[in-house]
């Protein structure tokens, strides 16, 4: 198979199968329904597990069970559903059970709307459940990248024994684009997970337990510090980003996911008109790609965060910036997808002000 035209949600579902996903547990919510719909058919054809749970809460706890039993597991949902899943996500992280979670974001808070949004940034990067934990989270910009990242995410989840979240918005989930499913290698069958509660205690002569309960605060702190050491390794090794036209840029956009696609258009138009504009595109939301902000050229004077949420990522830009550059934010929210013209206008206003100064 070379390039095929697929809808985002279907492409992500198929990528999960190719990533070696053994089981899917989910609950319907717009705009990600094509994922369970696609998998209900194709997981069965592959003789793998598909269960439509009675709620998001049940679904994530099924993920916890199947992941604990050593399987590669996927669930998907959208913002309010992800909020419901936070209980289980905290348990997964706390007891170090790997899984992959696809979040096709929509507007909030509450029931919000069903149009594309990035307002889950905090929910994704700050945890959303209780306790000190992090999810490795990828924010692809197009369907090819989504497919590549999802395939790899099962390996990453297993390697770190940690949940991995794929964060896209409704736009990427709903749009169609050609993808090459063979571009990245399919995941190979894995070895048995030594820690899993897979019911082989009799053969091993030693039972495994999977718990997140540690009643002695000193033991719990020790556990948390061990987790932190793991998260530190992720910060060290897993930061991913793209730098576009930053070599001589005066103004640098910071944008991810769909917003980055739109920002890319704006960069191209602005460059054609002679404006020195570039972009940093985080591919991992957590760990936030601090490295992308190192060694920026001296020409840079302003970083402009563009996001479909009211400055949630901008907080991370502020932390990374440490007072070096002027900062600005252009945000749309509630399901409104910005148009390149809006970014262009904002960029011109900033550059004009700089010239005047």
């Amino acid at each position, binding site marked *: 198979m070379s390039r095929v035209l697929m809808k985002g949600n279907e492409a992500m579902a198929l990528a999960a199968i190719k990533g070696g996903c053994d089981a899917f547990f989910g609950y319907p919510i717009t705009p990600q329904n094509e994922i369970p719909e696609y998998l209900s058919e194709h997981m069965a054809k592959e003789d793998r597990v598909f269960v439509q749970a009675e709620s998001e809460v049940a679904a994530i*706890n099924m993920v916890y*069970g199947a992941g604990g*039993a050593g399987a590669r597991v996927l669930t998907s949902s959208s913002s309010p559903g992800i909020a419901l899943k936070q209980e*289980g996500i905290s348990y997964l992280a706390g007891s170090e059970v790997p899984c992959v979670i696809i979040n096709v974001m929509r507007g909030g808070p509450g029931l919000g709307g069903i149009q594309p949004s990035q307002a889950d940034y905090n929910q994704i990067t700050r945890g959303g459940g209780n306790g000190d934990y992090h999810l490795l989270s990828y924010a692809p910009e197009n369907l090819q990248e989504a497919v590549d990242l999802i395939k790899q995410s099962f390996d990453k989840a297993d390697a770190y024994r940690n949940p991995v979240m794929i964060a896209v918005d409704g736009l990427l989930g709903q749009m169609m684009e050609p993808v090459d499913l063979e571009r990245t290698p399919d995941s190979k069958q894995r070895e048995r997970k030594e820690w899993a509660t897979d019911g082989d205690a*009799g053969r091993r002569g030693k*039972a495994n*337990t*999977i718990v997140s*309960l540690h009643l002695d605060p000193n033991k719990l702190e020790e556990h948390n510090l061990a987790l932190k050491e793991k998260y530190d390794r992720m910060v060290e090794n897993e930061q991913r980003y793209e730098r576009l036209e930053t070599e001589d840029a005066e103004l640098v956009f910071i944008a991810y996911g769909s917003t980055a696609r739109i920002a890319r258009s704006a960069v191209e138009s602005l460059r054609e008109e002679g404006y020195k504009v570039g972009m940093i595109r985080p591919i991992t939301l957590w760990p936030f790609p601090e490295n992308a902000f190192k060694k920026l050229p001296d020409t840079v004077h302003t970083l402009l965060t563009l996001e479909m949420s009211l400055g949630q990522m901008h907080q991370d830009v502020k932390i990374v910036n440490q007072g070096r550059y002027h900062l600005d934010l252009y945000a749309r929210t509630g399901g409104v997808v910005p148009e390149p013209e809006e970014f262009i206008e904002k960029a011109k206003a900033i550059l004009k002000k700089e010239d005047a100064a």
Partner: protein
Amino acid sequence: MNSDTVYRPKQGLTDREFHYCPGCTHGIIHKLVGEVLTEQGLIGEAIGVASVGCSVLNYVYFDCDMQQAAHGRAPAVATGIKRVRENHAVFTYQGDGDLASIGLAEAVHAAHRGENITVIFVNNAIYGMTGGQMAPTTLIGQKTTTSPFGREKEGTGEPLRVSELLATVPGAAYLERVSVHDPKHVRKAKKALEKAFDTQMKGKGFSLVEFISTCPVNWGIQPRESLDWAVENMIPYYPLGVFKDPEKEEEDD
């Protein structure tokens, strides 16, 4: 069982000493589960799911792989496990706060899907762990820390009968309510557990054994009295017996 046998060392359980209060029946029920899993040759490959409640730590007692679930979610966790480990005996061990209240949806839907798991449901008509609050199973007139004047039907409803409720769910294959207040009933309870795991291993669907249990501490009575209290007050409202039997269903068909 040989009639000369008066005590048998525990099987299917670790050497850890139970933390349960005197008069509480968790210990007996643990022992029965361990015995049945051992006698049926399942313990080495069994996977248990611990829930939240007084038995939250049972993962240190059962001598098999154990996963600890969030409050009420044990049937969902067990679903996940069973779907990827089809040939293993998978069981949950839940109290009435866990199963009949916060986790009712998970329990009903696991039964509803005909999930091929076994649920050990321990009903003592009160929240033990958090200090004796009213449970959905608390009897009318029963005083708890959140029904200080005795539970009234008005506003809190009447006690929920889980076995009877699940008997209306088509996917539930085997349901029985038992008690462990005397040796005769303990033997009967063991038979129920045997049948429940048998139902699972034959792939017939969801099985649940409901145990009438005690809580002397939170009922505020002596351990010995608590067994009598259960017999006199709980069993009349929660009658013992089989509510669903796959063999009967087959005969009826």
